[in-house]
């Protein structure tokens, strides 16, 4: 497939005084792709999103959104964007359906288009029966869905989602993921930041791992795991006293060892056999768990730190 590039960033840099929030990053996103920025808080994900939306001016580098520079063509670029910010900024003085219609008016869209569109989006967000409720009365998950519905009012070609499920309970997250997946299927380009590896694995075709404003790795979730981690991981807990010193005794088991304050991770192709080797050495962990490698492990490998701290 030869899809056109909708976002192209070259040496994108944003500095706030001495702090370089985004440090010389380059990436391309083809139309219809679901592209993720994975990294811990403060990695520069939100700043990158703001520059794409044209609400933050870059310090240097170039950025093109569907051939336009968001800095000089802000309103035109944003006409094709849907934005779901990290914190909901719904209009609490308006009711649920009014939020959609008024937001559409900000794009200069006519009411004859907005009225049926609002109803369609309420249906999509499973909020039809809340159409005339106050925003206050919605749960966290409903507010998030309304924010996403609102971001779709102008039928955007690109949807920017900044930490879409942070702060939601597991059930609400799964409903949201389902909705986002449908959008992806309908051909909308998704750009999403997250510090949840499961979210990135579920939703992203391709992602960049960012830390301290720099790109550490780029690829599909599966290829990143293949490249930077083993197939399986054995997680052992020896108690917080012993975790730090047990490393020497575990040497030689698996491909690699990572000692965290609360647990020890052994990277191995076969986790079960690694566990057998541990017990064969007479070591008795308090708990043990064999699991598949995840993006969390990739991140740990690349940065020496965990994603959520």
């Amino acid at each position, binding site marked *: 497939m030869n899809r056109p590039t909708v976002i192209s960033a070259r040496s994108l840099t944003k500095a706030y005084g001495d702090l370089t929030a985004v440090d010389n990053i380059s990436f391309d996103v083809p139309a219809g792709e679901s592209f993720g920025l994975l990294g811990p808080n403060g990695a520069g994900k939100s700043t990158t999103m703001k520059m794409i939306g044209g609400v933050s001016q870059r310090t240097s580098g170039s950025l093109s959104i569907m051939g336009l520079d968001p800095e000089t063509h802000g309103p035109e670029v*944003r006409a094709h964007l849907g934005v779901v910010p990290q914190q909901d900024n719904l209009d609490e003085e308006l009711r649920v359906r009014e939020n959609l219609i008024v937001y559409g008016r900000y794009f200069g869209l006519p009411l004859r288009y907005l009225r049926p569109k609002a109803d369609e989006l309420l249906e999509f967000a499973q909020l039809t029966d809340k159409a005339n409720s106050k925003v206050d009365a919605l749960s966290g998950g409903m507010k998030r869905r309304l924010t996403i519905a609102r971001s779709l009012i102008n039928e955007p070609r690109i949807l920017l989602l900044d930490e879409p499920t942070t702060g939601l309970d597991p059930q609400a997250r799964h409903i949201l993921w389902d909705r986002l997946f449908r959008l992806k299927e309908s051909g909308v380009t998704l750009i999403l930041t997250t510090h949840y590896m499961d979210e990135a694995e579920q939703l992203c075709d391709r992602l960049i791992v960012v830390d301290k404003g720099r790109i550490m790795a780029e690829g599909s979730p599966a290829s990143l795991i293949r490249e930077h981690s083993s197939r399986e991981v054995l997680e052992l807990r020896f108690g917080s006293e012993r975790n730090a010193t047990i490393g020497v005794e575990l040497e030689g088991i698996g491909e690699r060892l990572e000692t965290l304050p609360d647990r020890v991770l052994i990277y191995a192709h076969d986790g079960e056999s690694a566990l057998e080797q541990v017990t064969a050495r007479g070591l008795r962990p308090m708990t043990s768990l064999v699991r598949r490698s995840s993006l969390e492990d990739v991140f740990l490998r690349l940065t020496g730190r965990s994603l959520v701290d």
Partner: protein
Amino acid sequence: MSVLTGGHSATDLARERKFGSLYSRNARAVVGRGLMAAKSSTWLVLVSGFFEPVLFLLAMGVGMGSIVGTVQGPGGLEISYAAYIAPALLAVSAMNGAIYDSTWNVFFKMNFARLYQGMLYTSLGPLDVAIGEIFLALLRGLLYATGFTAVMGVMGLLTSWWAILVIPASVLIAFGFASFGMGITSFMKTFQQMDWINFFLLPMFLFSATFYPLSVYPQPIQWFIQAMPLWHGVELLRQISVGSFGPATAIHVGYYVVMIALGIMLTTGRLRQLFLK
């Protein structure tokens, strides 16, 4: 997509783009949002803003006026004390209405409701937001002014048909305060800082020749008060209310025209700095 016709020089293009990221000619969407929000919000705030000057007029004009008797109005006319202070109170009410909308309301939307953040992620530019919000403030000012002028009429304080012009003049005054108020509010980060606005407004209300003529002050204080915006509003409305105009009338109007222009420049520049950084 912008329609850029041929024959534009490079600087024209650059200017158009710079302006293009500020303004998308859609301030009416911001006004529409304000009206829709007002529909569901409490009318009590609106009503209280209307009654405040009416209560002052009753207490000071009718109450104190009964021991003051008549005073010399603009052009040397003898008028009742109530008729003397009523236009001043109207100017204060225009100021308060505009200030309420452009400061407290804007402060809340900016810092707590994150309303502007949402607006600026659409096709709207900061200038659309500024114009829309200021227009709403003026609409409130117009409502207050119309109501208060009606009260003045009922109380027999209007002696000239010219007096009907106090309504558009009040809107002019409201415009001056609203355009500046929003810009100043953009600097405020806490509620304590917002109190400084009241700290500035209250003395201006009391001492801007609202209740007695400017001539009671020594010359340097007179100059100071004449530099303040409310005094020009008070004098302008007082002159209109009795239909006595002079060269000073043009100066008062001019003062507000300049204030409006500077205020809009300040507000737009600040919104740009705050939201498009």
